[in-house]
């Protein structure tokens, strides 16, 4: 075996000598390849008047100085608006269906003579958690993903990267990070995986650590509900247009935070030089709608249902238990909320809200349900059938207009959900960076909420 190694080394040495004599070998090889390719293509490809004018015309608009950016923002808002408005009816329907079934479950438990606590854990906790997540999260996801996939398959996303690359380069990040952020809208875990398209490890890490600042589908319900509550403080009646504009604005803010944090990271923990950027702008291809719908709805539906079962149901059960086991005259949940009250108030929230976020680590969707459960202290998540009802409960618990604002900010910026953290661990193979991916966003969230709170209070606005 050693023999083999010696002979190989000799060979390598000889090749090296020959190589040095030749000069730019790689150039000549690649040139040779391309010249052959050109010759062959010339022999077999016939183009009659080239018809790529349509592509050019579209790009002329999409990447133009005047229309490029406004168009991007308009498209983003449109996607949100369709998602929000379109999801309303199915969400209500699903909620009715699932909660009606819950009543049947309760009846069954009563008939079976099951103990109250069992009914509480299984029905009021487990099943209700599941029902809430499915009815609230599934419809928006089922709409958002096909829309997003449509833009993806169409070929529009590379144009977005093309438009925004300079901005990202200035922030020390890679233009392709835009694409990973787009993916993060659907699910941050998927966004983290998408970071594989960034070859340089440094820039990939920046993209992974900041992906969380793009709100995933799981956070939309929280953002939308809070946006509606916030709007309700100023404008009477629910206006989906206003709400979706607000959400779009929140997203833009998230993007700005991404740029800022990327910049800081690239100047401190992840110092380095920008890597190569070559992005292909593929021709536009009108997607096959049928396949697209089936693929994105089916894939996403299954994913959400699975997550609801695995994450939300147990979390619901746990929360019910915490809310219904009393130590002294308060439930455990109330105790926790008490401990966190001081901190919560500092950042414009309260103990229950902070606790809801902490308990919402497994999945962002359950933050609002847990919060309501805490407030109502009836030990069960009530379905509130209107934003007004929700607002009443919140006002009864000391909310001002500052609270939903900070809740929006905190939800946008705080630590990633457990699935995302696990994905980061898997992709980076590093505990250190996984911890940082939780700490950095949380630190940002706390600072931003703190500043906003002090400012608003200081100005006597609340």
């Amino acid at each position, binding site marked *: 075996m050693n023999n083999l190694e010696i002979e190989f080394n000799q060979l390598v040495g000889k*090749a090296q000598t020959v190589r040095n004599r030749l000069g730019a070998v790689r150039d000549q090889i690649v040139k040779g390849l391309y010249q052959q390719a050109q010759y062959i*293509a010339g022999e077999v490809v016939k183009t009659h008047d080239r018809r790529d004018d349509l592509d050019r015309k579209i790009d002329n608009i999409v990447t133009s100085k005047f229309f490029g950016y406004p168009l991007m923002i308009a498209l983003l808002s449109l996607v949100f608006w369709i998602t929000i408005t379109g999801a309303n009816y199915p969400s209500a329907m699903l909620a009715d269906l699932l909660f009606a079934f819950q009543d049947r479950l309760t009846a069954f438990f009563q008939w079976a003579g099951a103990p109250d606590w069992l009914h509480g854990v299984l029905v009021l906790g487990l099943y209700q958690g599941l029902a809430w997540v499915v009815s609230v999260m599934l419809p928006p996801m089922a709409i958002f993903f096909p829309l997003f996939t449509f833009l993806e398959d169409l070929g529009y996303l590379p144009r977005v990267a093309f438009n925004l690359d300079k901005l990202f380069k200035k922030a020390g990040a890679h233009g392709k990070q835009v694409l990973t952020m787009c993916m993060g809208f659907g699910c941050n875990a998927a966004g983290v995986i998408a970071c594989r398209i960034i070859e340089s490890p440094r820039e990939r890490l920046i993209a992974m650590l900041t992906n969380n600042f793009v709100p995933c589908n799981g956070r939309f319900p929280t953002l939308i509900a809070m946006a509606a509550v916030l709007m309700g403080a100023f404008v009477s009646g629910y206006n989906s247009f206003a709400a979706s504009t607000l959400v779009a604005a929140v997203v833009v803010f998230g993007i700005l935070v991404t740029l800022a944090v990327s910049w800081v990271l690239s100047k401190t923990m992840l110092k380095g030089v920008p890597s190569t950027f070559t992005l292909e702008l593929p021709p536009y291809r009108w997607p096959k709608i049928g396949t697209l719908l089936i693929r994105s709805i089916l894939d996403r539906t299954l994913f959400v249902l699975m997550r609801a079962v695995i994450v939300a149901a147990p979390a619901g059960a746990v929360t019910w238990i915490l809310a219904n086991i009393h130590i002294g005259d308060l439930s455990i949940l109330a105790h926790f909320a008490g401990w966190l009250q001081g901190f919560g108030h500092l950042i414009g929230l309260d103990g229950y809200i902070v606790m809801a976020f902490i308990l919402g680590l497994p999945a962002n969707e359950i933050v609002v349900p847990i919060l309501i459960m805490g407030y109502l202290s009836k030990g069960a998540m009530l379905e509130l059938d209107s934003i007004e009802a929700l607002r009443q409960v919140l006002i009864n618990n000391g909310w001002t207009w500052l609270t939903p604002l900070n809740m929006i900010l905190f939800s946008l910026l705080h630590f990633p959900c457990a699935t995302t953290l696990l994905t980061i661990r898997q992709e980076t193979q590093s505990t250190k960076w996984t911890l940082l991916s939780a700490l950095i966003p949380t630190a940002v969230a706390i600072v931003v909420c703190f500043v906003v709170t002090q400012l608003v209070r200081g100005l006597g606005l609340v």
Partner: protein
Amino acid sequence: MGLTAQSTGIYAFLEELKCGSGAQTNAVIALAGNPNTGKSTVFNGLTGLKQHTGNWPGKTVILAKGNYQYKKKNITLVDLPGTYSLLANSADEQVARDFICFGDPDATVVVADSTCLERNLNLVLQVMEITPKTILCVNLIDEAKRKKIEIDCTKLEEILGIPVVPTAARDKVGLKDLKETIHKIAFAKKIPQPKQLAYNQDIEAAIYEIQQEVERLLQGRFNSRWVAMRLLDGDTTIIKEILSYLQRMKMDQEEGLGKCLEVECCE
């Protein structure tokens, strides 16, 4: 960069493939191609898997695999990352190259974008240099038609010396022909003779200088011309990998030999 077959996990993947779960596989087929060629659509079309595709570079999950049945044979398809070439040292390209080179697939299908054939041929030619069992799948012919681009596949076959199959994977056009061609090449007794790419005089002379020695050392296991070129290109990792591959083979052989002797004794 220091990426080796070991570090890219290729051997682990190959082990998994061979020992695989479920049905015995009759052939392993590699699927290569530039990004944006609809390669994943071809993959989905052949295997019926719902792996997501998207119209931007680098979206393919690394080394997805699936399978399908054709003429009573079970075929495993491995979807390699989309790469522009097999020469640069990014992890994607290394993985793709390692698989085609060391994974010894029974055939390699290179998916090309028919609206951009010239650029895609670069990869096709490179793959042909590594393995003679290459099939060219000219995809997106519906797009080409829309743009009034015509490709003479028969002539292309003649020039390249490898089978050429036009497809429009989105509409499932041409996939049956592709399966048939894969079947032919994977189970053929004769090894096809693709056209040999010729470089300029200086390069050819240099290759000639070291090729014989390379041939001897490789023991016929790899394409000596291709390895010679990699050496001239200054790629030392490929040599290390070939060396360790050959050493492994030798060890396996010796082990196998030992077992044979045992059996004979018992008889």
